[in-house]
């Protein structure tokens, strides 16, 4: 069964003069790990907002087409109702932490939706354990690093038990090490069965884990498929998307007449392919 479905969805913000999303058609199945990328202003954030109803309920504007989340039309569902299906993690972690400690933060969402106190306590302890937040338990958000804050924000989102985790550039404010930690955590969650949609620019860090890569430009989806198939297209360079080093090398070799057996995504893969080619 499809978890999220965009049917010819278009959106224009009230104050904007052009469409932020143009005729989007997109199906997301349970268990997928989708990475979305594209140049600045191409509509990635708007796409994320459309999945949990922030567009059009929080950000008003003109809507065309439909988005169905777990068979519910987002036009007729409240954000709070959609929150238990699609959990959003945003770019700036400090704006997502609104309470004074980790326990309260994780409990905030379920409390708002009137979940039983005992059940909330269970979820809090479970997430503190799974996301390794024990050392942060008593810290004020201001005393945490960006990476720690983002981990807490992720736990707070997961506390609503969403079926799909939508993360909008969760690592762009972080140092490379913390970014890697967050990406590892997302990959882990996906392996445990969580459907993931991740907006990310550093494709070298995520292409290998992702099951699908979506390229956006000027409000439209311009490529959608397995990461290898998308990254090998020249379109990527044309719209200014940075592709992994290994894939770049593959393409340069190909231009000079050397075709490797497969499109590599990581250095390790590239090395193996080169070895293979030499032996052959």
């Amino acid at each position, binding site marked *: 069964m499809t978890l999220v479905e965009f049917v010819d969805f278009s959106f224009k913000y009230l104050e904007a003069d052009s469409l932020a999303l143009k005729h989007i058609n997109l199906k997301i199945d349970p268990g997928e790990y989708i990475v979305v990328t594209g140049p600045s202003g191409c509509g990635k954030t708007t796409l994320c907002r459309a999945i*949990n109803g*922030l567009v059009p309920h*929080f950000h008003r504007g003109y809507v065309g087409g439909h988005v169905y989340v777990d068979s519910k039309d987002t036009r007729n569902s*409240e*954000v*709070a*109702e959609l*929150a238990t299906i699609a*959990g*959003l993690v*945003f770019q*700036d972690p*400090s*704006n*997502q*932490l*609104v*309470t*004074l*400690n980790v*326990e*309260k933060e994780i*409990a*905030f*969402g*379920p*409390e*708002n*939706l*009137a*979940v*039983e*106190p005992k059940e*909330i*306590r269970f979820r*809090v302890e479970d997430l503190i354990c799974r996301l390794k937040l024990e050392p942060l338990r*008593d810290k*004020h*958000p*201001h005393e945490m690093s960006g990476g720690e804050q983002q981990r807490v*924000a992720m736990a*707070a*989102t997961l506390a*609503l038990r969403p079926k799909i985790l939508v993360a909008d550039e969760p690592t762009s404010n972080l140092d490379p090490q913390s970014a890697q930690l967050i990406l590892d955590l997302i990959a882990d969650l996906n392996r445990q069965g969580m459907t993931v949609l991740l907006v990310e620019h550093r494709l070298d860090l995520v292409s290998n884990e992702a099951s699908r890569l979506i390229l956006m430009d000027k409000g439209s989806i311009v490529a959608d498929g397995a990461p290898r198939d998308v990254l090998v297209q020249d379109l990527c360079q044309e719209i200014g998307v940075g592709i992994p080093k290994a894939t770049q090398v593959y393409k340069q070799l190909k231009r000079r007449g050397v075709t490797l057996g497969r499109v590599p995504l990581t250095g390790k893969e590239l090395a193996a392919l080169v070895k293979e080619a030499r032996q052959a």
Partner: protein
Amino acid sequence: MSFLEIFQYTRKDSIIHRLDPRSKMLFSVAAAAASLMFLNIIPLLIAFLCLIPIIAAAKSMKRWLRSMKGLSVLLVFIMVFNTLLSPVPNPFSHSVALTIRLVALMTSFSIFFLTVHPDQLSQALIQMHIKFEFAFAMSMAMRYVPTLAQEAYSIMDAQKARGVELDKGNPIRRIRNIIPIIVPLIIVSIRRALSIAESMESRGFGACEKRTYMDRLSFHKGDWVVMSVSIVVLVLVVYVRLFVALPEWMLWSLPL
């Protein structure tokens, strides 16, 4: 400003910390009332001395002493001025009494603020039927004050780097120089507020009329004891003040 530390929560594991904020609130009010009822050195000193063991029980003696040290200059200043300007017959004695009263008042409220986490305070307010939105706004203010302060500093640095001189010139000029700090700060804060609202919205803020709370405060044996003692003290102090003449030794004052 180090004396403000006695109004700042410190995480400790003590009998006082474990008490319910509501019973501590009543206790602080009773203690404050006790020191407000009298203006003689002896009764004030008794009220004040009763508070010291409680500070000790809250494991906060060091912090309290440090704050008092920070406060001492101000206290001496108050005492000198009061003595010089007061029209009463024994001005020095009167000033000493006033100073003790001030210290006792601060101490009684510090017992509350030292040992109540802001989260507990807002939970207590909610359970005293203050609206959740109001209590939450208060705790959010505490959450974002350091963040905004940091933002203000970085804007100040950025503007200084661009040649804005913040601490030069006459007062009017200085005020004008604040504008390049205030305007970006307001813009940044509005943008931040929107983004916070968006994140809260997507976590169901305000969705249910009857929201639940993971932890509710509840009264234990100690709280009932503290409540009863506070009420007895309150009643006793008011009664004595209104209907009983204090014995001679309690009215003792310094000769000056």
